[in-house]
């Protein structure tokens, strides 16, 4: 049998090469896109874990011991109060029914101090729950480090309390702990949002 011994023409080669290049570029774009997504997902996962761990730790104490009182001790002048010496930006003390106390607070962030921004944390019961942020090596002129942060912590409304009186005359206090934690890439709030009532019956 006679073989077809003709090679590809230059046009065929160019067309094939173009198609392969087109496919490769397309694939590269997809891979890069997923690479970015993976990095973003990892960041989201870290923030989710942060929120879940801290929320669970605080709620576990609340459900086990019951909240008797929560006080904002940010500006305490009592030297024996842990909030006095911890150097936190905002600091609240949770007192449980068994009279144990635990401190919750946010770290101080200095707009011009890179370390304070990349190492910010929420403090609870002796543990620093870190919110690792990333900043570029050099600061663009006319900017403050705080302008470049990805993770933002808002603690203005860290503690709110209301009360009501039940039919039997018992006063019930309800405390809301709100620390917002947001990331510029995500719409979700990864903060701590806890509602605790002194009308406690346990789990």
């Amino acid at each position, binding site marked *: 049998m006679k073989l077809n011994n003709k090679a590809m023409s230059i046009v065929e080669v160019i067309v094939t090469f173009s198609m392969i290049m087109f496919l490769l570029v397309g694939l590269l774009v997809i891979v890069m896109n997923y690479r970015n997504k993976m990095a973003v997902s990892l960041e989201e996962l870290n923030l989710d874990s942060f929120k879940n761990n801290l929320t669970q730790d605080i709620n576990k104490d609340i459900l086990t011991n019951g909240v008797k009182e929560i006080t904002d001790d940010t500006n305490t002048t009592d030297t024996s109060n842990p909030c006095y010496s911890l150097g936190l930006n905002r600091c609240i003390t949770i007192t449980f029914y068994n*009279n144990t106390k635990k401190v919750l607070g946010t770290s101080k962030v200095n707009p011009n101090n890179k370390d304070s921004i990349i190492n910010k944390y929420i403090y609870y019961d002796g543990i620093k729950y870190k919110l690792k942020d990333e900043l570029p090596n050099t600061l663009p002129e006319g900017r403050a480090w705080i302008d470049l942060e990805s993770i933002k912590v808002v603690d203005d409304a860290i503690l709110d309390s209301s009360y009501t009186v039940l039919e039997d005359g018992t006063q019930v206090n309800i405390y809301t702990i709100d620390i917002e934690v947001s990331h510029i890439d995500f719409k979700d709030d990864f903060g701590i949002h806890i509602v605790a009532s002194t009308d406690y019956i346990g789990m």
Partner: protein
Amino acid sequence: MKKKNSRGFILVETLIVTVFVVTLFVLVYRATIPLMGEYEQQNYYDDIDSVYYSNLFKQIVTRYANIDYIDEYLKNNTYMDISDCTDTILYSNNNYCQLVKNKLKIKEDDKILITEYNIKKFKDEVKRNDYFDSGTLSNFRDYISTVPNYEPFYSILNSMAFNNNSNKSILASAINAFNKKFDVPQPRYTYIGKYRLFIIRTVEDADGSTSRRYSNIGVYTGTNPKFLMGEKVIFNPGDGEKEFYVLANSRSVESTVTLILAQNLAGNVCFNTAKTSTIPTTLLDQLKTKTSGWSNVPYLTNYTYTSSAGYTINYNGYRARLLEENDIYEFLGCKEDEKLCYDPTLAFEVAFEEEKLNFLVDNLTETNGYWTGAVVPNSDLYAWAIMKGKVIPVNLNDCTNIGIRPVIEVEKSLVRREG
């Protein structure tokens, strides 16, 4: 031989193949993208905040909702909308309900639904009823398809300490019968639920947009209040209200709580007048006499205590007992085999290092305390007492500074929290 067709694809053939391949890709894409959306949506199903919020609202339902009314309603309906805290038939303490709802950021348009614990029927209703595919409930159908009909959340067997296995097996049979009737998958017979509470709320996200959160939690309405060790409570044992501290939540049945009087009932009592390491007869006589008028405290029946020293106290006919080694293990948070924590056989005192144990030494001075029912074995000289913030071996000859502090077990319904 037939001549081969040496021509390549014609344009039409190429176009057909291209269209076919593109169509295939479009179909795959359309099938995949919604899955990714659903996955993202599931982040909002039973998220951690919503679950804890549901737990708090569950307490409103168990304590202040009209359970009979809910029961009656659910006889003819698969679910009940209990979002309205101003409903005076549904809730007592309406203001508290509303306050909790506000604090949990449950808005007026949001929904709180209650169903039977087994949501099989409710799921059918959700599939049929277009109400569950509109407005606030627009994604509810998707959410409920991810929720199992049954979830274990409450272990009735574990919450009760049974005296013998026959009681346990009777209860297990009853629960098995319940499971058969209500189609509970085996072997989850230890779990029992009455209602399921669903909360659907709209949440403002960090970027100002809104998203809907869905959560559910089981409700067991028969749960007795749980008291905390060291919690001060008021109880009238029969001769007027007195302050007690909670020692343990329950020793025998779920509805009872073990209390210790917040002060000594009698002071300057000898362990026994013989001042020997035998049964504390003097203490027991005093205990029986001083608590004989405590008519609201049931008599202890078949309750005996065997000390590490070998003697047994039979509390038949007593309304109260003395503190014992098991109590000490419990409040120190150690087990009987953890000798480093507390070893009743060695006369070494154990300090209460935790502030939460201060209740044990309330109303005591530096020099007085109260006896437990246990002597230090083989010492012939000491019995265990509570004083100076410690579990301490006290010389049996010391009859001047040590008193009695009765331990009782009473119905939780008769106990009032302080304040």
